[in-house]
């Protein structure tokens, strides 16, 4: 667009840039407040309230958090579930998406409709719980992965990506004697790395953030992922929530700095992958928004 140099246009720009800067700050300040707060002492936090650059640096909060093994153990669970879950989900998603991308497949439209319909209607929490229970998944780590293994949005994004690969590639591979499995693993998947990276990161973020599956399907507190522990320490310890099961290890309400440290620990992995994620996700989000 050509630059518009009138005075009203300049004022517009100044107001717009200022407002956007404020919005950016409002979005990010709470995170910075919590990160800085977790690295200072309780007294400094009490005196200055809002700390962005602590004058007294301290790891006390982290030492306290890691003095019991609750958080450590839950981090292990989250890392494991995120890693295995992402692999499992990607395998299932890629296989199904590739199959559905083949235009010559009999029954393809029926299966696509079946997938789309689950986005409009569902059996709901209790019938799903009963199925998970019948499968013997209650109190197993698999309950955090298997019942949510395929995300219909992600499946559709992958299918669209596969469908847009040039058909000639498959043809020529077939002439060279490759079977369907060979085409998928030697040609289609290597060519789809950008899409695979994006969707993997989407799945990984979802698994890292897993909370609901854990409270529905895991009664055993020793198996809880970090998000559930975070809720125990920050939200339940404020003495507010309706049920206070599993509070034994943090009976005394923890200090603000400790709460902040746990928030940082639960957030950190995502902040670390965010720069990689960001490169791809806009495209993924766009494809995902176009249903069908």
């Amino acid at each position, binding site marked *: 667009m050509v630059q518009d140099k009138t005075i009203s246009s300049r004022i517009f720009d100044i107001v717009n840039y200022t407002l956007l800067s404020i919005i950016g700050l409002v979005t990010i300040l709470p995170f910075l407040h919590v990160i800085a707060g977790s690295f200072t002492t309780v007294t400094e936090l009490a005196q200055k309230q809002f700390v962005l650059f602590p004058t007294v640096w301290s790891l006390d909060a982290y030492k306290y958090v890691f003095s019991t093994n609750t958080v450590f153990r839950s981090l292990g669970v989250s890392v494991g579930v995120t890693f295995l879950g992402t692999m499992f989900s990607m395998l299932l998603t890629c296989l*199904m998406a590739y199959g559905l991308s083949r235009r010559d497949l009999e029954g393809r439209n029926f299966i696509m409709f079946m997938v789309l319909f689950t986005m409009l209607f569902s059996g709901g929490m209790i019938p799903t719980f009963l199925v998970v229970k019948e499968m013997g998944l209650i109190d197993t780590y698999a309950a955090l992965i298997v019942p949510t293994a395929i995300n219909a949005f992600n499946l559709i994004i992958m299918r669209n990506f596969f469908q847009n690969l040039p058909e000639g590639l498959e043809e020529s591979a077939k002439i060279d004697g490759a079977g369907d499995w060979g085409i998928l693993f030697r040609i289609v998947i290597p060519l789809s790395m950008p899409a695979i990276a994006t969707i993997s990161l989407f799945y990984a973020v979802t698994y890292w953030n897993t909370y609901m599956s854990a409270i529905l399907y895991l009664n055993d507190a020793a198996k809880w992922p970090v998000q559930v522990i975070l809720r125990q320490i920050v939200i339940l310890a404020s003495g507010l929530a309706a049920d206070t099961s599993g509070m034994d290890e943090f009976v005394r309400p923890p200090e603000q700095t400790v709460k902040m440290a746990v928030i940082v620990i639960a957030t950190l992995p995502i902040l670390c992958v965010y720069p990689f994620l960001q490169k791809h996700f806009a495209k993924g989000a766009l494809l995902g928004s176009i249903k069908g």
Partner: protein
Amino acid sequence: MRRIVKNRAIYLMILPGFLYFLIFKYIPMSGLIIAFQDYQAYLGVTGSPWVGLKHFERLFTEPMFFTILGNTLLLFFLNLAFYFPVPIILALMLNEVRREAFKRFIQTLVYIPHFMSWVIIVSISFVMLSMDRGIINELLVMAGFEKINFLMSSEWFRPMYVLQIIWREAGWGTIIYLAAMAAIDPGLYEASRIDGASRFRQMWHITLPSIRSVIVVLLILKIGDVLELGFEHIYLLLNSMNRDVAEIFDTYVYTAGLKQGQFSFSTAVGFFKSLIGLILVMLANWLAKKAGEEGIY
């Protein structure tokens, strides 16, 4: 038949995913029949006695039902009225930024919260809003006001709920609008500038009408989510002090079903919810088509 045999490898690839949808999506749908039974775990779906519409009758006579229905509808309405326009406005603002670097920087910042779980978002709010050393209350005191117990009050639940949604999702919500804006023909802006249109008028008469169909589609999708207010989010904010305004269908199903073991009754509640949701999407889609837009299916 020959084609099916020829493609057997492809069917084998689809099979695991097909089974996933069958087991974890379609069997639960058929499991909705326990809403018409007195489900007993040891008798199972096949053995439990049929009771017709008993649970639905109870649902419609329970006073709690109307509180929940009211809360659900009100929270949805607030969500629609206060959250829905925000990404559009934010996208309009970002679209006017000519400095690519600045635009990308702000986008990077406002996308971040979307990737945080509700537990993290709610936890950060709790740390900031708590009565005991929460930054917001400390600032209120410094400014000469009384402390406010945000987390344990009925009045503050709704604003808190909406603001958290805006904080988490507004930035992410701009992606689709920005993409739609990028596709607008620059000639339109040029022509309007020659006619003397200000930047505001250009936004109003060119940008907004150009993304109208995208807005309509997203509105339909939103209406389809009328009863999906986010179990996690509300469950995390829910406590004994705000239950009267915060309890929605999902949290009620969770407490009545899984905590108190009333499987059949809470399945009936969930069934009612899913059904209303389905009807609303179809209605919204039909309305969109009537209005001359494409709809989503």
